[in-house]
């Protein structure tokens, strides 16, 4: 995908650009708000990574608001050291699609970027059934089947599986699961997510030949055939 990266800190910019290029994405870079704004408004991107506090008199939220005023719906991920709940709310209200605070891990940023782009593409057609390999779930009847065999899941387990299936083939981080499945926005000290994943695995993977839920080291999990 084509990514615009607006970030004034050279170390952070190089690090992100390198990581994304290595993952096969095309990255355009802007080191100040003015350049960022002109690139964002004149060219087409799949996703924009936007720092908030930028030199050059044009700050991140201004770029974002300008885009949204022009009915430009390109997904925007805000990347900022402003970590306050109120700052996050301000960022999302201005039209941001996700918010990652500095310091961050590259795997978290990458996972969230891919989820954003995927969501943007999927939003057009609402789905009622999701399948991956021999696993299928029905979002209306809430039935889960693997290899034709019915699997009983608790409501939360169903939501966890649904989240993983909607992001099939992508890395989802523990934070993404905590936010997306439980709607919690704090950092639990214990490995709560790992325990819930392991319970889900008992039901959907254990009785079958090959596993679908994979652990991605230092990053999170991925549902994949």
């Amino acid at each position, binding site marked *: 995908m084509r990514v615009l990266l607006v970030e004034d800190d050279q170390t952070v910019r190089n690090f992100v650009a390198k990581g994304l290029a290595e993952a096969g994405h095309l990255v355009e870079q802007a080191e100040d708000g003015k350049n960022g704004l002109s690139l964002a408004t004149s060219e087409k991107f799949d996703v924009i990574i936007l720092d908030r506090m930028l030199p050059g008199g044009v700050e991140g939220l201004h770029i974002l608001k300008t885009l949204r005023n022009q009915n430009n719906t390109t997904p925007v991920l805000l990347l900022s050291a402003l*970590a*306050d*709940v*109120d700052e996050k709310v301000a960022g999302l209200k201005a039209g941001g699609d996700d918010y990652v605070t500095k*310091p961050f*891990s590259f795997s978290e940023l990458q996972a969230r970027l891919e989820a954003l782009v995927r969501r943007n593409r999927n939003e057009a057609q609402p789905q009622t059934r999701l399948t991956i390999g021999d696993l299928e779930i029905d979002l209306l009847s809430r039935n889960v089947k693997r290899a034709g065999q019915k699997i009983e899941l608790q409501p*939360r387990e169903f939501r966890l599986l649904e989240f993983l299936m909607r992001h099939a083939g992508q890395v989802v981080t523990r934070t993404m699961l905590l936010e997306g499945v*439980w709607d*919690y*926005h*704090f*950092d*639990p*000290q*214990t*490995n*709560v997510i790992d*325990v*819930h994943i*392991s*319970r889900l695995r008992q039901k959907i993977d254990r009785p079958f030949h090959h596993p679908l839920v994979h652990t991605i080291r*230092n990053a999170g999990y991925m549902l994949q055939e």
Partner: protein
Amino acid sequence: MPQLKPNLYSFGWMIREMFQRIIHLIHKSTAAITHGDFSQHIPLIGNGDERDDVAIAINAMLDGASQQMDTVRQTSNAIAHDLRAPIARARSQLEDAALYAHTEAELRTAINHAVEQLDHVTSICDALLRIAQIEAGGRRSAFTRFDLVPALQDILELYTAVAEDRGITIETTLPATLPFHGDRAMFQQAIANVLDNAIKFSPSGGTITCFARFMPPQPHSENDGTIELTIADHGIGMMAEDMANATKRFFRAEQTRHISGSGLGLSVVQAIVHLHGGQLHLANNNPGLSVRIDTPLPHTKISKITDIHR
């Protein structure tokens, strides 16, 4: 009555002189405070008149400010210490690797360990910012009425799996509904921190009890009753003298130093409970620790709380 005139003058002069003296004393004390000396108090004259009242009020203010300054100083020292420790570890791991690592694998291991230490620094900063933000009180505008029972069940569901995984049982006693006034997400975080601790300090095979109830208002009370929430474990417990310090930032009891954590969990709980006008009580559970959170329900004209509980 012309003879009153000189008296009025002398009375006015007396008042003027009295104020001048008070102002002079205040000036002397404030000058000392400007230079950081909070011990400088305004001397009492001892005749119990208005001058002493002013002096007593100002001295009390000075004592309060001085105590707060001490807390800030102690907290800053604790922050510096607790941030230095992981930074020092990261630094030595990196320097050690730079000097002595022979293989790429060794280098990578050292770098990963250093990153973990820095992540720990970040989580400490996050918790501190969170406490500061909660204490600033701005979030109170987001307070709403909600039923605490489903909010509790949600968070219990998240942690029950973790507890079971470690062979710990969580026993829950909740009424059908519990009216509550506050910030749902924030209060859930407080409960999560308490549960997190209870699980962390419980032995395998142990039991954690979670109990909540509505306490009707006392006559002439300033609230519509209180929600009492107790989470008790049978873990290693806490020494009586540690309980008084447990909510202080970075406090970690001697016997828990080997267990991972930031030492900020209960400080966050305390800040959240205070924001809700509540009280946090720690008690011995013989064995284990019992954490009780009492949160008042503010008066509301439209509330039907008493109806719910009749």
